[in-house]
């Protein structure tokens, strides 16, 4: 008996699942090998079944089991839930982060001269922290301004610009005493016309007065 294409299609899965008898298998193969329609169909179905069986099951949503258990056994007060974040601490990235933060704090404390014995509970008062930070910022600013003003090049530029900035006294009294003969106090007063230097003087009581060079 020769099988028809309809019979081949009906028994396709039986053939693929090995449910045909030996004689049926021979008939099946004889038709398929000679049929231009059935051969590609068999190949395609076999290929699809093969691909389906390689598919990994999809992972179930992480919360599925807990949701089912909550609905059936009731909400569970599991102590472990409170500490479920603990394993995170053992992750290398967390350890690296902690070490980096500690090293940064150490460097900051070293640079600012903070000693461990200096730290008391009172230091944590937000008002004190604010005042300390404020005075440190102003002091640092004042020191940097003073440093810049003390630079020789800056001083020389300021000296040369001085006549141009304040020409009136020189023009008004050309015969008066030269500026080199001014007292140190007068000299300081002259420089005090510069706003930033005045600001430094108020912040740093022991700032050395600059003598004309």
């Amino acid at each position: 008996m020769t099988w028809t294409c309809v019979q081949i299609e009906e028994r396709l899965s039986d053939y693929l699942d090995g449910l045909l008898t030996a004689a049926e298998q021979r008939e099946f193969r004889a038709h398929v090998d000679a049929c231009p329609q059935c051969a590609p169909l068999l190949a395609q179905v076999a290929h699809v079944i093969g691909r389906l069986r390689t598919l990994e099951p999809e992972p179930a949503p992480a919360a599925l089991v807990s949701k089912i258990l909550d609905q059936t056994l009731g909400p569970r007060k599991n102590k472990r839930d409170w500490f479920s974040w603990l394993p995170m601490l053992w992750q290398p990235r967390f350890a690296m982060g902690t070490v980096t933060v500690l090293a940064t704090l150490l460097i900051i404390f070293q640079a600012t001269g903070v000693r461990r014995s200096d730290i008391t509970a009172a230091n944590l008062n937000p008002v004190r922290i604010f005042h300390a930070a404020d005075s440190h910022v102003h002091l640092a600013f004042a020191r940097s301004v003073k440093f810049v003003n003390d630079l020789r090049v800056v001083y020389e530029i300021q000296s040369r610009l001085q006549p141009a900035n304040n020409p009136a006294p020189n023009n008004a009294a050309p015969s008066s005493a030269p500026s080199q003969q001014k007292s140190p106090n007068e000299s300081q007063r002259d420089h005090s016309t510069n706003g930033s230097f005045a600001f430094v003087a108020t912040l740093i009581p022991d700032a050395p007065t600059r003598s004309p060079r």
Partner: protein
Amino acid sequence: MEPDAQLVQRCLRGEGPAWEELVRRHSRRVYNICYRFTGNPAEAEDLSQEVFLRIYRTLASYRMAYGGFPTWLTSVTRNLLIDHYRRTRHDRVTDSLEDVMPKVEEKHSPVRTPDKAALASELSAQVQFALSRLSPDLREAVILRDLQGLEYNEIQEVLSVPEGTVKSRINRGRIELARVLQEMGLRPE
């Protein structure tokens, strides 16, 4: 590993951990059947919860004579899926094949060579789409046979239909699926 039947007995005695073990053991399989049938992860999650809720309430009616616990579980899942399908079939919109059909990547694409995980994910999406084109009867038969690996007699128990019907549905489902996937570009090498 403790057999399912023993776990069921312990559940019936009121042991919570035994139920938890049953849920952990079978939730992924139930979820996958639901996901492959509906094609929607959120729907599949909700349906999986419903399945276990139903199992929990009717656990006392489970008899060993009925078959293995997984078969019973699959049967409950299948019944719930069919109920769900009947309830929601009017809400579904049938899209045109060309609009939504995911295309198969060219095998030797010069632009990129996706890794195995990406290819598997792509195949999974294509299969999911092709399954959604099948009628529920054929779809469930193919899912149980080729994705869940159930034997013919187990499928017969789950579907409560004669063996001839099971075979016929599996066969027609496979051929339909193969044709849809062929249209999408999945062909033997």
